[in-house]
């Protein structure tokens, strides 16, 4: 046996040793990942099974009888979308979430630019206030705003939830964007000013394009937050079923049809499909928004 052989053997055995030493790590990681996935996976399988099968046997039994996969269909989804109001609710969620994302983005970006690059009295104080407002629980605002909405006949309208969501999202948006826009190179903005560009031109041609990463993070965060919200919709939309978003309709399904698992499973997935698409498509921006915005009220 040569020295090189010896060495190779030692190397091989250490590779195996390393793998064996890592076995507990592999088991732990795989086990946790599986445990974390099983609840959602079970719901997905169940949403494809028909009403009777769902109540007769657990969803995991299809693994012992793989032939039954042939019985899967979209029946439950069709029922929940047409006869349980989930279809309208899905549209309502879009109508609520898109403006409730665009409005605070526009307002927060303008404000962030002014706070970062314009001179006016009290701007430091204004920003400190924004930082303070980040963690104010929105529960503090529900009663007075609901009363005002009732008086103004705004309760149960899209405008009511758009403005409320926009305002609740603003502290985070201003905070995030002001930090980003404030860190842009001073030379760039001064050069544009010397060239005689107006503030609006600097803003639309320079600031907005350069801040796209931060705007995207905030957009993803705010969109998911609004889409997934129950509290704001519940309080300000009240019992108006015509404008109810998916979360509210799903919650009512749980209340009224708590044992109708064929409706609940499909309904839950209808409410989750958009967030899941956003999650898989824009995970990078979502993580960044979360890192920055984990303190939102």
């Amino acid at each position, binding site marked *: 046996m040569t020295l090189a052989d010896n060495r190779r053997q030692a190397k091989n055995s250490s590779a195996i040793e390393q793998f064996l030493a890592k076995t507990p*790590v592999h088991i732990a990681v795989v086990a946790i990942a599986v445990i*974390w996935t*099983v609840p959602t996976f079970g719901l997905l399988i169940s949403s494809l099974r028909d009403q009777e099968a769902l109540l*007769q046997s657990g969803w995991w039994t299809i693994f012992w009888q793989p032939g039954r996969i042939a019985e899967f269909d979209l029946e439950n989804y069709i029922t929940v979308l047409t006869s349980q109001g989930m279809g309208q609710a899905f549209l309502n969620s879009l109508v609520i979430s898109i403006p409730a994302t665009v409005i605070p983005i526009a307002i927060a970006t303008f404000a962030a630019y002014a706070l970062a690059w314009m001179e006016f009295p009290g701007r430091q104080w*204004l920003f400190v206030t924004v930082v303070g407002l980040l963690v104010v629980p929105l529960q503090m*605002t529900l*009663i007075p705003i609901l009363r005002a909405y009732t008086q103004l006949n705004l309760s149960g309208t899209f405008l009511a939830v758009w403005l409320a969501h*926009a305002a*609740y999202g603003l502290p985070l948006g201003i905070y995030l964007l002001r930090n980003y826009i404030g860190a842009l190179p001073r030379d760039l903005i001064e050069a544009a000013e010397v060239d005689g560009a107006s503030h609006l031109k600097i803003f639309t041609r320079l600031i907005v394009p350069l801040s796209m990463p931060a705007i995207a993070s905030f957009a993803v965060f705010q969109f998911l937050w609004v889409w997934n919200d129950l509290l704001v919709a519940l309080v300000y939309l009240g019992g108006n079923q015509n404008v109810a978003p998916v979360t509210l309709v799903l919650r009512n399904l749980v209340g009224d049809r708590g044992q109708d698992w064929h409706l609940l499973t499909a309904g839950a997935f209808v409410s989750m499909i958009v967030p899941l698409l956003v999650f898989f498509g824009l995970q990078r921006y979502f993580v960044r928004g979360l890192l920055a915005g984990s303190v939102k009220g």
Partner: protein
Amino acid sequence: MEGSSNLVRILSAIAAILIGSGGVIGIFYGLNLLAERLPRRVRTQILPWIYVGPALLLLLVYLILPTLRTLYISFFGRRSDEFVGLKNYIFAFTDSDMLIVFRNNLLWLVLVTGFSVGLGLIIAVLVDRVRYEPVAKSLIFLPMAISFVGASVIWRFMYAFQPAGQEQIGLLNAIWVSLGNEPVGWLINRAINNFALIAIMIWLYTGFCMVLLSSAVKGISKDVIEAARMDGANEFQIFWRVTIPMIRSTILVVSTTIVVLVLKVFDIVFVMTGGNLDTDVIASRMIKEMFNYGNYGRGSAIAVILLLAVIPVMVVNIRRFREQEQSR
């Protein structure tokens, strides 16, 4: 017929989206056009206020004034027409149901923060050593995208309960029964229902903690770990003596975030049990006072307690921000 009414619905949805989104941009352009007609000196003074104005207005109308108003009416009766002093607060801190609410919130705070941060840290360290790290992380992080309502339905199904002798369709009871036990009403039994609800939040937020802590763990220099290994430290010693001390500030930020989130937890309790069977928490109790009992005084007092609980976090945030500004 039905096809055309669906079309109308979709078109009106699109119209609403365009009006809502376009309106705000239109307002800024209109204001800006007006400002440009002013003489230059006035314009440079007014323009900043046009830019921050809408933000200021919304913050004032939707956050600052209502907060003050809530504080004010927390000293008044159920219809806000008679001054009652501290009566609502005395109720909040002495009523036996309210004491259960505080006990529950404390349970939530300790268990959710402890488990999601602890598990998140362990997973962050473990996952760093395997090659399929991105996949494992995505799966554990995925629940973050799901709403509390959606997660509640997912877990209602996990906790589903049938009387003994019938086929269990909830996974937990199926496993429990196959081990030779009686089925458990996870959400009904007062000794365990709070823990069943808390588990949902842990499931939702462990991934979030993992992502934040994982980026901190990756920030620790390899030389430090190598040096500790050379000195004969084993993996557990490295974890306790090197990893944890080096990412302490991240652990603190993550824990604070979870504490603030847990304090305001509402949806899970509201959807799963409606706060019945001793499962109410502060935020769900507040909504109950507001809608079910129509008692705005008590509802406001409970909201104020929530605010008081987050004020330390607010102070720390502002202090940290000021330090950052000074070191800029």
